[in-house]
């Protein structure tokens, strides 16, 4: 009996001392992102890695996923981070509802969770009894910036079409609603609104076909820049220099197009810094700062020629 107690005490002692050893080391931040095949998240990862190196006072463990709809792997990543006992999880959810439950478990395990890029669903949070702040851009507001630029350039009553992102994706929905806000505000006439699944070639074909059906289109709102590039090429092929296009994301490939006026405007949401800023916020809470509340908005900016 004594022996057993002794062993137990020794084991506890070892556990405690290792626990202390871990606590003395740098805090560990688990970063969970969406598809790294997406330029936006790839840039974000690079920004986060540079940030980890520059700060040097925390350890970064980053996980991406195979594609936009593979949220199973995000759930696994949360569980792995719980097992590893990280100090904070910073996550861009691929699905705003499915991620609530695993993140709740992480919070119950005492991990600081920061939700960035795409907000978790309010209803799902309420249902699970989770209070969690959101750090991220206003996709709807951003799209409205681009849409407003188009509205100003074209004037009231102009005929426009929207090229949407993936149906069901939260940022696609938000951006579409932002464009629709501009349509309402500038009293534009929305001729058609269809998805091109974020993809250049598909947007190119889609706009060519929309132009056939509605030759009087004056403006195009594309929910990301890859699709805006496809739209611009379709207009060039049709010889329609009179039609104006706006995009979203301000990827490097569109900057020359904005310069020479083929693209009217795009929106920069500073993706490169977004993960890094969220990590900063998470580390403040880990260091004993107050919990985050509500919506911490990150900057967005209209990028246009003049």
């Amino acid at each position, binding site marked *: 009996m004594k022996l057993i107690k002794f062993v137990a005490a020794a084991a506890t002692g070892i556990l405690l001392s290792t626990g202390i050893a871990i606590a003395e080391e740098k805090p560990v931040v688990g970063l969970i992102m969406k598809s790294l*095949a997406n330029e936006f998240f790839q840039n974000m990862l690079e920004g986060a890695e540079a940030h980890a190196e520059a700060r040097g006072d925390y350890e970064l463990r980053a996980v991406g996923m195979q594609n936009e709809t593979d949220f199973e792997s995000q759930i696994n990543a949360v569980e792995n981070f719980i097992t590893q006992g990280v100090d904070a999880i910073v996550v861009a959810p691929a699905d705003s509802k499915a991620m609530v439950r695993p993140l709740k478990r992480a919070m119950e395990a005492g991990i600081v969770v920061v939700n960035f890029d795409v907000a978790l669903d309010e209803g799902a949070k309420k249902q699970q009894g989770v209070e969690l702040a959101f750090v991220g851009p206003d996709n709807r507001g951003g799209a409205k910036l681009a849409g407003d630029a188009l509205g100003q350039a074209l004037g009231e009553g102009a005929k426009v079409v929207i090229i949407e992102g993936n*149906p069901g994706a939260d940022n696609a929905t938000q951006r579409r609603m932002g464009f629709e806000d501009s349509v309402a505000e500038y009293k534009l006439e929305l001729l058609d609104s*269809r*998805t091109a699944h974020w*993809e*250049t*070639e598909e947007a190119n*074909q889609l706009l060519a076909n929309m132009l*056939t059906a509605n030759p009087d289109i004056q403006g195009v709102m594309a929910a990301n820049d890859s699709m805006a*590039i496809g739209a611009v090429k379709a207009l060039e092929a049709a010889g329609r220099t009179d039609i104006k296009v706006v995009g979203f994301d301000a990827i490097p490939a569109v900057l020359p197009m904005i310069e020479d006026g083929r693209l009217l405007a795009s929106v920069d949401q500073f993706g490169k810094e977004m993960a890094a800023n969220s990590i900063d916020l998470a580390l403040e809470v880990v260091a004993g700062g107050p919990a985050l509340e509500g919506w911490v908005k990150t900057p967005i900016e209209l990028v246009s020629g003049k």
Partner: protein
Amino acid sequence: MSTAENLPAASGRRPLSIRSIINNAGIGLALLLMIIFFSVASEHFLSANNITNILTQITINLVLAVGMTFVILIGGIDLSVGSVMAFAAVVAGKAITLPGMGATELIILAILAGLMAGMICGFINGAVSAYWSLPSFIITLGMLNIARGAGLQISGAQTIYSFPFAFEEFGSKLIFGVPVVFLVALSLVVVAWFILNRTVFGRLIYGIGNNEEAVRLAGHPVFWYKVAAFSICGLTAGIAAIIYMARLNISSPIAGIGFELNAIAAVIIGGTSLSGGRGSVIGTLLGAFIIGVLANGLILIGLSDFVRQMITGVVIVVAVILDHYRAKYSAT
């Protein structure tokens, strides 16, 4: 049925071309009905601009489908062509944006690099699946991931842009309203038709699909014929990559997701049997037209995205059912 009868190449005769004409006429009739329907339903459908659009829009799928026809004729499948196209586009995109060279050299270099990249992927698909007699379904599924990953790795997941002007010009050039890129695709169809119908190699492609063992016993190097079929498929993915770049003036590592399915659909709708040995590249041409006309026409008549997707699915299923009956009648 003896093995000799199963080997059209051995006798040097083309098998029942009248029947294949009737088969193709069936698909052509379906296409014609579709065209009539859309011309009535939309005033824009038959406009010169829209015809140019349709030709442009089916080009990439047609190019991929021509290569896919070879693979399906030998009883294989290539699921990797969309990814291989993106990989080849990235390789060519890296080549064409190299500093310190003239535009012409860069364009030639990029085209060669893109075609090579595609063909190497196809070669690997064929060599691995034929050497170990593994189902090409799973090998090319592996290649789908390998090529996609390689493209993302090389490009750092960034869109590659700013190509020489001459290259862009080629992508949007029209001759009497017909896109030059479509003429490239059409000439591929002609070349493929010639190879499949007028050369021993082509007849053996059919032979392998009908009865691989017989071709082997007749002393032909089946392994190399299979490798060649997959290499051709990879090469067409490389050609599709160059066309993609010329048209859009970018290289995207996430291009072509799901393109393999459209290419397979064009081949199957065109009457080529999934079990191999039966079909034609002319059918594939018509199949690509059916998919392209459908995609274009359904937008023009204003159907929603989701309904469009459903109808496209129904057309594929109906085509395969028709294929079932074709197989039954040609067997009797």
